[in-house]
């Protein structure tokens, strides 16, 4: 193996994803669709975990950033249209979506990260809703009816390759010397500040990085579903992602990935109980908070404060 440590896993993940995508024509289309959903959920949950889990800043507007990335990359793909090498531009459109989402994250983050706790949660929820309302009223991106006929570029390889990159970047970031700042901010902001951590800068960087990957996930989502509309990015979607992070245990990457898989598969399994699906889901949130606030897969091996 030419790489060591985390890089090896990244390499393995990408190779496996690309290898698996060669066999996708033989897969059942329904199962393949669900598996790609899982990959997108992993990217969303891991990126939110950086903001909510590692850095302890509570954001309820992740779906807004996803919408920004999704809309821009879908719009670019539709503009390019059907040309011989159109698919080659897919990574570029994803990147553009991610960068715009990161930029919006910067615009949202700089003023709102001065707030704490539930106020920050409400403001990010508000920004997410504002993004949705703007999308709903902009004719260039289809207004309320959304964008249709987006080419289906999001393959198994792309989705899981990018999921591996997301996990790799975020874990490496948190484990770096610099990234210890995130955890310091999470544990005690005042103590971190007095030890020379630039807390505002740290929080903004976490927010912008999280927004970038949410934008990428949005692009994948658009090129997977081939249709996006503002209602798909309402605050329930943000809550979905938040629940994944909480279920997995804030700041625990493996747990969050497991929760993303579980919560994407659960609605598919509960398809027969469609009427009760959302009631069960809401009850799950309440019971989880009452009984296991540290996450479903967190056991009391070492005590960790949950913020």
């Amino acid at each position, binding site marked *: 193996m030419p790489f060591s440590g985390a890089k090896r896993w990244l390499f393995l993940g990408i190779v496996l994803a690309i290898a698996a995508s060669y066999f996708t024509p033989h897969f059942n289309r329904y199962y393949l669709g669900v598996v790609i959903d899982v990959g997108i959920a992993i990217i969303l949950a891991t990126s939110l975990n950086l903001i909510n889990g590692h850095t302890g800043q509570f954001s309820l507007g992740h779906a807004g950033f996803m919408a920004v990335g999704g809309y821009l990359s879908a719009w670019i793909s539709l503009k390019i249209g059907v040309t011989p090498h159109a698919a080659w531009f897919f990574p570029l459109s994803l990147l553009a979506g991610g960068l715009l989402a990161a930029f919006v994250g910067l615009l949202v983050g700089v003023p709102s990260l001065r707030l704490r706790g539930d106020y920050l949660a409400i403001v990010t929820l508000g920004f997410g809703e504002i993004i949705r*309302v703007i999308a709903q009223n902009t004719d260039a991106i289809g207004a309320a009816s959304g964008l249709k006929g987006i080419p289906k570029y999001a393959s198994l390889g792309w989705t899981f390759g990018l999921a591996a990159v997301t996990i790799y970047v975020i874990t490496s970031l948190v484990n770096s010397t610099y990234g210890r700042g995130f955890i310091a901010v999470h544990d005690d902001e005042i103590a971190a500040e007095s030890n020379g951590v630039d807390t505002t800068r740290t929080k903004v960087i976490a927010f912008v990085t999280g927004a970038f990957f949410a934008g990428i996930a949005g692009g994948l989502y658009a090129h997977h579903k081939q249709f996006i509309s503002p209602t798909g990015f309402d605050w329930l979607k943000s809550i979905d992602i938040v629940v994944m992070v*909480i279920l997995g245990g804030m700041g625990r990457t493996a747990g969050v990935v497991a929760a993303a898989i579980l919560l994407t598969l659960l609605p598919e399994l509960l398809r027969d109980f469609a009427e009760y699906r959302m009631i069960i889901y809401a009850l799950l949130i309440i019971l989880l*908070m009452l009984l296991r606030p540290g996450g479903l897969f967190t056991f009391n091996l070492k005590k960790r404060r949950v913020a």
Partner: protein
Amino acid sequence: MDFLQQSINGLGLGAIYALIALGYTMVYGVLRFINFAHSDVLMLGAFAAFYLAPRLEQAFGPQSVPTVIGVFLLSALICACIGMTIERLAYRPLRNRPKLTVLITAIGVSLFIEFTCQNPRVFDSATRPFPKLIAEHQFQLGTLVVSSNDILVPVVTAVLLLAMWFIVQKTKIGTAMRAVSFNQSAASLMGVPVNRIISFTFGLGSALAAIAGILYSMKAPGIEPLMGVQPGLRAFVAAVLGGIGNLPGAVLGGILLGVLETFAGGIPGLSNYRDAIAFGILILILLFKPAGLLGRATVEKV
């Protein structure tokens, strides 16, 4: 003249927001957390009235005084019980947990009520017409048209604000509420039954939500399980705008927001952005004056 007309319409709408905001503010004042389920209690209040009205009309005759008072009182009572039950089951076990845990639980409770009520076996998600509880009259004042509802709602709000102010400032239980708000453990050491006080506050707030829900439904085209979400959101913004935890502030914020929204609705390009405007105001307030218009800024001590 159009300006005056719009102001009157805005006042009628704002007074309802103010009434809902009062409930948010009461609970926040004592527990320091945002009760997301408040807007759903409002919806339950409207549904309680929906089912009570025909029965009371049979007994006392339609649009008679005992019917109206009975509907309002019984719905308020039902919602007070629901509010206390929610507090007992979902929030009390989390009393000393981090704020965000409680916030997410509140979101969970809100979703639970909404999805349960949308189930076809409960209320179903269809919109139903709300019974005419009080006959509506239109008064013509020059070119102005004033509906009796636009007078009734602000009057009810003013009376309830005074009542709340009286309870909080002048009664023994109000003193206890302020003590709990100031310092829970110290209040408990002084012999204040903290749990009972919090329960009472929830009951009071939920009763206000029920009354607001009925008044809102009298104007709205009909009632459905998600009807509370929009006014609840605006009322929350109103509570923060006025300074959350502050009773007159909630009313001021509610009326300001109602008037602003009515004016924004009158401008063609802006009417689609009404939700965004409410959130925009909220964000601006939180960024520049987080304590709200009438709130006091607190200094964080290390």
